[in-house]
């Protein structure tokens, strides 16, 4: 009997392994690099500050590979959830932007980044429920 693995399961498993490996590299490097950025000057400061983007870019590539590997329905779910996250973030950004005019402080880019990720996380089960019932 030839056992064939579900391509979606294989894509998920591969992604999990690669994601956690890249995340481990990110966590291991972020604090030493942040510390080094504070003690460096000139162009090196910018290069050092952007170094953690390498594992993040790898995660980005792994995500694309995962989305290409999963079935049509799951791909549609993630695409819609991500689009909703973009819409929610844009709406919240413009709302807060008006409040900035009223002298509220500029938030860190991490704050906006977190809004995209959280709204993506919240939208995914809702979109899944719409398609899977």
């Amino acid at each position, binding site marked *: 009997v030839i056992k064939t693995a579900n391509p979606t399961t294989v894509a998920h498993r591969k992604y999990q392994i690669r994601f956690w490996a890249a995340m481990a590299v990110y966590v291991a490097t972020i604090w030493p690099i942040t510390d080094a950025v504070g003690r460096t000057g000139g162009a090196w400061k910018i290069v050092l500050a952007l170094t953690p983007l390498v594992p993040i870019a790898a995660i980005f590539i792994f995500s694309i590979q995962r989305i290409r590997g999963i079935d049509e329905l799951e791909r549609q779910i993630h695409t819609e959830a991500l689009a909703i996250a973009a819409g929610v973030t844009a709406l919240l950004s*413009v709302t807060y932007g008006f409040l900035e005019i009223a002298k509220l402080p500029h938030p860190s880019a991490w704050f906006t980044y977190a809004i995209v990720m959280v709204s993506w996380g919240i939208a995914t089960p809702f979109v899944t429920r719409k398609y899977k019932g």
Partner: protein
Amino acid sequence: MNWLDTATLRIFSWYSDQTSRNVAPAPAYLAYRQRFRAFALLFAAGFILHAASAPRSVLHLASIALLIATAAAWLAIGIPYVLAWDELQRRALAESGAIAAAVMLFLLMSAALLEPAGLPRLSTMWWFAIAAAAWYVALPLVRRQYES
């Protein structure tokens, strides 16, 4: 009709042609197009009022309220318009939205990592503008991919 109205309509018509090519104008699309002008004028009025009024004055706060209310009303009209789209159009919208989110995530991460190196914190208006621009650029490209 003045030059600004003409230019706005031309841009909107061009963009609509790019995003809804070969699709007959649906009633929802025509209703949206008519209201688009009203919303554009309200936004313009809000920005002018905002620029002309003194900071923290009643007019200044009223202009902010007007801008937020116009954005909310635009959404209230825009959502039924999008829901009236056919499957292909909605799919293109979702894909281009996902592309916009990916672009935004990458730029946000870059900006966040550069903040300790001295990059000033950007206004969230910039992130809105980046999301909107990425979405508007990606939408005709995604539609073209499906139509070709």
